[in-house]
């Protein structure tokens, strides 16, 4: 029996020497594993998943044509009394007699598109600017430092302008359209991403493993691309998720201000909110549906982003 135990012990020693337990795998894989256990991440993922699903399949599952004024006559004859939820129109009708449920479903796609494209623009352009600044400041010598200073002061100026104002000016320049909203919201996010990536990269640039890479003789460009950048992206990606939520709200705001899709018939949550304004006292439900849609979606992305931030937290990472 004791011999069996000794063997067990040997196996155990063997196992601990080559163990691949919970600590295994790359950092990303670990983060995902941690997120699967977090209620916050699950809630966020469910909301975002539902939203994306609706956005993708919306036009095929919507019971009615969102632009058709099917019950226009009924609304008109009833002197602008818009029926609330009823069996054939789950969310009721809007002021032109269109089916609100269909409009909400189809509107999700536009909302998602605006959010994703705007965030993408902000992320790519901001990361590029911030990355250049950080790389120049770290390895570019005297001139690099100057370049970094110039870029970052410009970013500071852009940051000082209220985001909505910045988006408004861009939108005003380009004229109202869905593309305008995307670009405007995206541009407004650039300085945030630029600052964030630069800060994150500078922190990594002073770490020991970067010093180790210099000591090995790794060329500067390679240090930036293969050491600093991959370790700096975590917080920026988290920010992107959070920005997606803001972008959706801002896009709604721009549409609300009339800078969105000029086609009055198009279904977009921000435009719907703007339209509902006139009937707020008589038919608040027209505003409530798109508002809840925007809030829940933004909440979903925020939860997901926060959960990601927590799971990527280096302090936690070191423990396990």
């Amino acid at each position: 029996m004791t011999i069996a135990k000794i063997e067990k012990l040997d196996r155990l020693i063997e196992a601990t020497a080559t163990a691949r337990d919970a600590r295994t795998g790359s950092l990303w894989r670990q983060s995902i594993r941690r997120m699967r256990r977090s209620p916050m991440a699950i809630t966020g993922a469910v909301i975002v998943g539902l939203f994306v699903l609706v956005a993708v399949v919306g036009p095929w599952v919507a019971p009615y044509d969102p632009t058709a004024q099917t019950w226009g006559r009924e609304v008109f004859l009833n002197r602008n009394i818009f029926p609330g939820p009823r069996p054939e129109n789950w969310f009721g009708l809007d002021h032109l007699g269109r089916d609100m449920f269909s409009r909400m479903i189809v509107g999700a796609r536009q909302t998602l598109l605006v959010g994703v494209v705007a965030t993408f623009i902000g992320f790519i352009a901001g990361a590029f600017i911030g990355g250049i600044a950080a790389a120049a400041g770290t390895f570019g010598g005297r001139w690099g430092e100057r370049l970094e200073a110039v870029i970052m002061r410009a970013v500071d100026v852009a940051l000082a302008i209220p985001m909505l104002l910045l988006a408004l000016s861009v939108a005003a320049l380009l004229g109202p359209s869905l593309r305008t909203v995307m670009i405007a919201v995206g541009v407004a996010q650039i300085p945030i991403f630029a600052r964030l990536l630069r800060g994150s990269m500078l922190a990594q640039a002073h770490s020991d493993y970067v010093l180790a890479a210099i000591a090995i003789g790794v060329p500067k460009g390679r240090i930036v691309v293969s050491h600093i950048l991959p370790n700096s992206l975590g917080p920026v990606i988290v920010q992107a998720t959070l920005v997606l939520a803001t972008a959706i709200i801002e896009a709604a705001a721009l549409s609300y201000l009339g800078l969105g899709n000029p086609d009055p018939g198009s279904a977009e949550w921000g435009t719907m909110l703007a339209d509902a304004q006139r009937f707020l006292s008589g038919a608040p439900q027209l505003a409530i549906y798109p508002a809840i849609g925007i809030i829940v979606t933004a909440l979903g992305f925020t939860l997901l982003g926060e959960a990601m931030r927590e799971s990527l937290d280096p302090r936690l990472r070191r423990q396990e």
Partner: protein
Amino acid sequence: MALLEVEDLRVAFGASTAVDGVSFSVPEGKVVGLVGESGCGKSVTSLAIMGLLPKRRNGRPAPVTASRPVTVEAADGGTVAAPTGPPPSATAVAPVLRRRGSGADVSGRAVFDGTDLLSLAPAAMRRRRGKDLAMVFQDPLSSLNPVVPIGRQITEVLERHRGLKGDKASKEAANLLDRVGIPDPTRRLKEYPHQLSGGMRQRVLIAIAVACNPRLLIADEPTTALDVTIQAQILELLKDLVEAEGTALLMITHDLGVVAGICDEVNVLYSGRVVESAPVRELFAAPTHPYTVGLLGSIPRLDLPIHEPLTPIRGSIADVIRWHDGCAFAPRCDRVAAPCVAGEPALVGAVHAHRCVMAEEVA
């Protein structure tokens, strides 16, 4: 009866056991060492004695939230040597707490002067802490409140436990600083922690700890963060305080050199248990447990012939088995044999006790 008797102390964080049945005693006026490497449970032991671990009672989760790592102190708002800042040693424990999202299961007894500290209500414990027992932590900077002058941090303790107010308190604070060897104490009272050097900060912490003449002082790696010449100063100071006041000192350290210099009795910890316990001279003269032997063989000595090869312990602390499967040190032990994994090794011997079934055969 010793001043402090710790009996079968167990601390578990969720499924992981940090302290697994530790017993030792601290006699009045003596210096007792708890020695071991990281993860052996020595700091958790001291926090448990001080009641600084958030407890989980009757299966109810302790008032610790998952997102706040340093609630160890906030759990009862206690004043120790660190009046406002969180105890830094607790930060070593905090991640565990944070991961489990709950407190520690503490069982066993820690009888101090006839009272079991572990069964005291938080309020009663708070009254004793800083007065009867005080603690000094490893990192003096984070143990002091950075925005409060050190004078105020000392007088706070004096007000609380000795009822001194105003000028009297300031005067006593200056006395204390003088006693711990800080020159120009009246001026120093107005300074902030960041204006002091590491050694000075540790002196301030010690001043706070001894402010109420505690009967037991617990020092958790008090010199680890300091340079060797400053370490010598602080050790000298602790020795003097202990001798002058008759305070008992529980010294928690990983450094066998520090132990040899200051302790009267030593307990060596491995994987949450005492594996050897003896008066200091006996321990160093005749170490019995293979872990103690290994530790001593791992340390390069200044007083032995140069380039004498070291005899390290193989493997690492991660390679442990559970005690009830046998000896936890077995995977790293050179003497390992069948009896080692046949069952739980007991702590044998009275004065010089050890937890090794092979000890007799070897010795």
